[in-house]
């Protein structure tokens, strides 16, 4: 049934385009834009000045912006760093005339006001232009807000309980490099993904086609060769870090938590492993002897 439904939906993607005869539809007004694509996370050196997440690389006189709005949750006032863009690395196009040719733009998001439609202040943009060679990675302020992400919203999550001094998670977005390309964007008379193939959404489909042309359609990578550290469980290298131990033990506790008076030994063992992971530091590698003990 499911396979049949998937085939039908896949078929509809092709058929609907043919039904509409998109070439016959009037083209909506268009304007070029720059689209950014994140790359899989990898350690970045300081010379890379365009990226999303992590901590900003800034001049010495940089001041981390703070929220002007009263804290609603934990008293924190630091705003989250979304990313920075080195203007000199943007692709050449007619748009360059609108933007600064040099310098770096820094974007920040204020979680104190996440659900207002329009906001003045809070969410912040900063621009710095100087000798980038002297720029340094900035430390996060102590009162940085915890990210609003569904994985962090559970009190079961290890990040909340074991947040350590100096640790970024869960207060910074995942740091990844970015690439950019000029694309065509279009006005859309029905701005929404509802009824993606309806004529009013032609602008959206044309934009998507431009993105496909710029970055290439997504294709699944070939299956990687099996190794002992991946997801082919049981894998002998698992767990590689105390973080995994913490997460698995926490999940076991969570599942056994509803069964009162049973599995007490298992619960005690899980708590011991969490305490051990906490003592060792959840971000550190786990010795082979402890790994064997945990797996047993």
């Amino acid at each position, binding site marked *: 049934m499911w396979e049949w439904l998937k085939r039908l939906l896949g078929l509809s993607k092709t058929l609907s385009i043919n039904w509409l005869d998109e070439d016959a539809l009037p083209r909506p007004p268009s*304007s070029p834009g720059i689209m950014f694509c994140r790359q899989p996370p990898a350690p970045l050196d300081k010379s890379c000045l365009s990226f999303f997440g992590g901590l900003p690389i800034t001049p010495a006189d940089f001041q981390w912006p703070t929220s002007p709005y009263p804290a609603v949750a934990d008293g924190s006032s630091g705003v989250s760093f979304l990313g920075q863009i080195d203007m000199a690395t943007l692709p050449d196009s007619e748009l360059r005339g609108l933007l600064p040719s040099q310098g770096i733009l820094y974007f920040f998001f204020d979680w104190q006001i*996440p659900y207002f439609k329009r906001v003045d202040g809070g969410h912040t943009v900063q621009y710095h232009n100087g000798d980038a060679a002297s720029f340094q990675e900035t430390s996060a302020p102590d009162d940085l807000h915890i990210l609003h992400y569904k994985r962090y919203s559970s009190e079961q999550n290890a990040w909340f309980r074991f947040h350590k001094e100096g640790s970024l998670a869960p207060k910074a977005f995942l740091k990844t490099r970015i690439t950019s390309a000029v694309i065509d964007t279009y006005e859309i008379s029905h701005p929404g993904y509802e009824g993606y193939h309806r004529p009013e959404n032609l602008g959206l489909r044309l934009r998507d086609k431009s993105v496909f042309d710029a970055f290439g359609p997504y294709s699944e990578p070939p299956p990687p060769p099996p190794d002992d550290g991946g997801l082919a469980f049981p894998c002998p290298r698992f767990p590689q870090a105390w973080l995994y131990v913490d997460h698995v033990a926490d999940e076991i506790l969570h599942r056994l938590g509803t069964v009162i008076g049973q599995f007490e030994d298992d619960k005690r063992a899980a708590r011991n492993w969490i305490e051990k992971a906490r003592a060792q530091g959840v971000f550190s590698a786990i010795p082979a002897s402890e790994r064997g003990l945990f797996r047993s």
Partner: protein
Amino acid sequence: MERNKELAIDREEQSLDKLLEQAALACTGPLMADPATSGLISSRLRTLTRRLHHAIQPGYAFDDIIAHQMLGIVPNREEVMEDLSRTHLLLMQFDSDPGMEFELANGGTCQFWITREDLTALRFDRVVVTLDL
């Protein structure tokens, strides 16, 4: 009876493997983010999580675009965006992006708007922000 016992054991092992899979995937992003711990992630796991970090998210009916965009036109689903798009330029739009753990109300977007004059004068303190949720 023996057959049932075999099936029960099989289910238990599958459940444990599933638990380990979930743990590995949940830990991958945060560990990757820190150069000190990124070496703990295997190349296989990096490959398997590649989709999370691509601008084009494959779907059954159509592919979704994670639209981190500068300048150009964005879908104006909110009246306030419609108004601003007449007087301002789109300096930057950040889209909800599970790969970087940025999420606004199940797929919302955040736009930074600036007038042409303010952009020329580098007055980024006058940026106006809208959220399309």
